[in-house]
């Protein structure tokens, strides 16, 4: 099996709740996390995400690749912004220098210089915690929510039948699309195409991906005709539809929703009255001689 769903039925805090309740809570968590740049507040969300992770029933070997990728991704960008100092400049105006490293050479009069400042260092840490919290909560969704229930879940959240079923269809055809993508990759690799050796600028690289993207797109278009026929032939969209699965929301789901809404309101109020902005510890500023 080349493509497999991540979802399994498991002993999971996420699966304990109704999927609609969990998605509402997730949306509240997402917006609330994005409202903060203060790592003290963000730690609350990070800890919450870790609690969910450790009670998700997802085994490490299942998420190892996804998490290693996310950790590498976040670390790379945190280090990149730390080194260049180009991230976070909209959040702070003043920098407190801890140490400066100058290269022993110059290129056309420019001497490469690395400035380690309190703000840059703490921005990297804050970014790591902020994105990490969101990533943990997001990655767990495909492992925890039953793809067969996406349609009814979104219908239950108020979307019209056609839009809600589009979610079901998306879940259904992700493995098919992935299979087609893999087939095209294999077909082109068998003709000596080496994706990993693609070089050149961004435009050039996109152009060189044509052997993959063109067949995959053409195949998707051809396949979509059959899908539309199959839907038409079974009376899709002729009127209000019955949804066979039934979701039940109970007390614990209402508690979860209210908990999420409370976090959201608290975050917005804190932001409104001036809390949650980028923060660096006083001790570090003193260390830097600020």
């Amino acid at each position, binding site marked *: *099996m*080349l*493509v497999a*769903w991540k979802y399994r039925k498991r002993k999971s805090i996420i699966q304990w709740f109704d999927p609609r309740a969990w998605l509402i809570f997730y949306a509240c968590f997402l917006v609330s996390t994005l409202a903060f740049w203060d790592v003290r507040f963000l730690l609350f969300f990070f800890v919450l995400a870790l609690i969910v992770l450790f009670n998700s029933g997802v085994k490490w070997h299942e998420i190892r690749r996804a998490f290693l990728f996310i950790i590498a991704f976040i670390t790379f960008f945190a280090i990149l912004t730390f080194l260049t100092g180009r991230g976070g400049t909209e959040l702070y105006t003043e920098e407190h220098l801890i140490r400066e490293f100058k290269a022993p050479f110059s290129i056309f009069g420019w001497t490469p210089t690395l400035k380690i400042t309190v703000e840059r260092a703490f921005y990297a840490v804050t970014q790591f915690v902020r994105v990490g919290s969101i990533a943990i909560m997001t990655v767990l969704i495909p492992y925890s929510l039953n*793809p*067969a229930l*996406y349609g009814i879940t979104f219908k239950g959240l108020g979307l019209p039948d056609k839009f809600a079923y589009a979610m*079901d*269809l998306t*879940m*259904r055809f992700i*493995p*098919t699309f992935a299979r*087609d993508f893999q*087939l*095209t990759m*294999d*077909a*082109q*690799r*068998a*003709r*000596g*195409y*080496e994706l990993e050796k693609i070089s050149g600028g961004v435009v050039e690289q996109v152009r060189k991906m*044509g*052997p993959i993207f*063109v*067949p995959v797109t*053409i*195949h998707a278009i*051809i*396949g979509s005709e*059959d*899908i*539309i*026929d*199959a*839907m*038409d*032939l*079974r*009376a*899709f*969209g*002729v*009127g*209000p*539809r*019955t*949804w*066979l*699965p*039934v979701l039940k929301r109970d007390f614990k789901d209402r508690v979860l929703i209210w908990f999420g809404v409370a976090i959201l309101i608290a975050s917005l109020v804190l932001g409104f009255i001036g809390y949650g902005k980028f923060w660096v510890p006083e001790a570090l500023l003193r260390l830097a001689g600020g």
Partner: protein
Amino acid sequence: MCDGDVMPAAALVIENLSFRYRDRQELAIHDISFQASPGEILLIAGASGCGKTTLIRCINGLVPRSYKGEMTGGVTILGEETKDWKLSQISQKIGTVLQDPERQILGTNVLNEVAFGLENLGIPREEIRQRVNEALKFLKIHQLSERETFTLSGGEKQKVALAGVLAMRPSILLLDEPLASLDPASAQDSLDTVRKLADEGMTVLIIEHRVEDVLRINPERVMFMSEGEIRYLGNLSGLSQVVDYREVKLPAKQILERARQDQPQAEITILPGAASSSDARSEAFGLNDSKAIVKFEDVAFGYEADVEVLHGLNLEIKRGDVIAVLGPNAAGKTTFVKHAIGLLKPKRGRVLVNGRDTKEASVAEIAGTLGYVFQSPSHMLFAPTVSEELSFGPHNLKHPQEQIETEVKEALRIVNLSDKEQDPPLALSFGQQKRVSIAAILAMQSRILVMDEPTAGQDYQNYMNFMDSILQLPGFEAILFITHDVDLAVIYANRVLIVNDGRLIADGRPQDVLRDFDRLKANRLVPTSLLSLNLERLNATGRFMRAEALAHV
């Protein structure tokens, strides 16, 4: 046109039906008239593009509701004309199973999939559950109800798609090439179900290129279409008198009778580039002791750490080999082939290509020896012109520019597409696209051609012509193809591998491997009339032959 037995109380009446697609000049079908009765199976055969699918679309209402155009004539279902019906009304009378169940299945799990049409009609939940259960039980797939659809095998998908249609309780069932992706035993299962449905009173129209397979369930009548018209409509016995045996795959004995009246055809020279002897086939019959180009040594593999799908394969591919790989769906055939071309590397054992371990070679390096043609050309064609498409491989292999130009021109000449050099490959016909995909491998100067289901989706005449021309190409030293078609192995292979459950069950000459019917059955293969005929005459012929050739032995 001659009509067969007149049957009372027609379930379906087609009168003077013609249709022209909006963007086409010519009619796709014209002046079609026939009736079909309850309990009847009507087999519809004909070359690709003859109008079969358009006819089905006219009956199930997709034409002109989804496919716009100019339609004249009438379709009457159970005494009522459908012209003013909505698609939802028609779908409750007529069920359609499309060619590729992968695209027809819309639900993520079996229960959702089978319930889909009933949900759309707004039927109450309890009734949906009852009708879904009935359909699943009828097809004996109730145990699949909780399964996710992407985990199903080809045969299971076909049955689930059928269950989704049957749950809507149609009176008429339309099947558009339902056997295309199935192994022989799964195809047989599906056909038995179709017979059962007809015996219970359903009218079944079945489009199929695998005519001989469908004849096993005794369809009441056969329709043969050509260029948008009915060329024959009647009982089975009349079919072989009317149509050319090269157009439709008839039972071998019927071909034999017909071919006796014709002049014997010259035998094709298989792999002229492989053997110094003119008969590569006989050389390979055990006499081929040349050095192996590809060697599998105890090869084991699994996609997941704890699940092995190949279990210790040992075999060699030598110059002059024309190898047919047979086996059921999900047996590991494609996984095996992907090891030969280096797309997958063994977890245990090793694969040697030209004496070099594939673990130490890139796929690009192996591509110079083995060229792989995938089942569907649309998975690989991307370039704006045929010429650029063909130069893609050699360019990746770092051939010099002048050499590439020569290779492209030579490849185009061999596949007879020199006049299409500047055409967009995706605008060519399916058969021409297949030839472009072969030419792309030829241009890379690969020594071994590897093909996955080379004849899938093509009509009989087209795929026989295609295989004849491929086998006669001078550029290859060996050919290996995966197929569900036992007759392809009988006609073209000098060596047959049966792969099942990741193991090599048999490896030998076709007459040795395919004579054991119990073994075939155990590996979901079904003996064909051509195989039986060849075995009957093996003492006289000494080898397997096509039915036309047997007629003159």
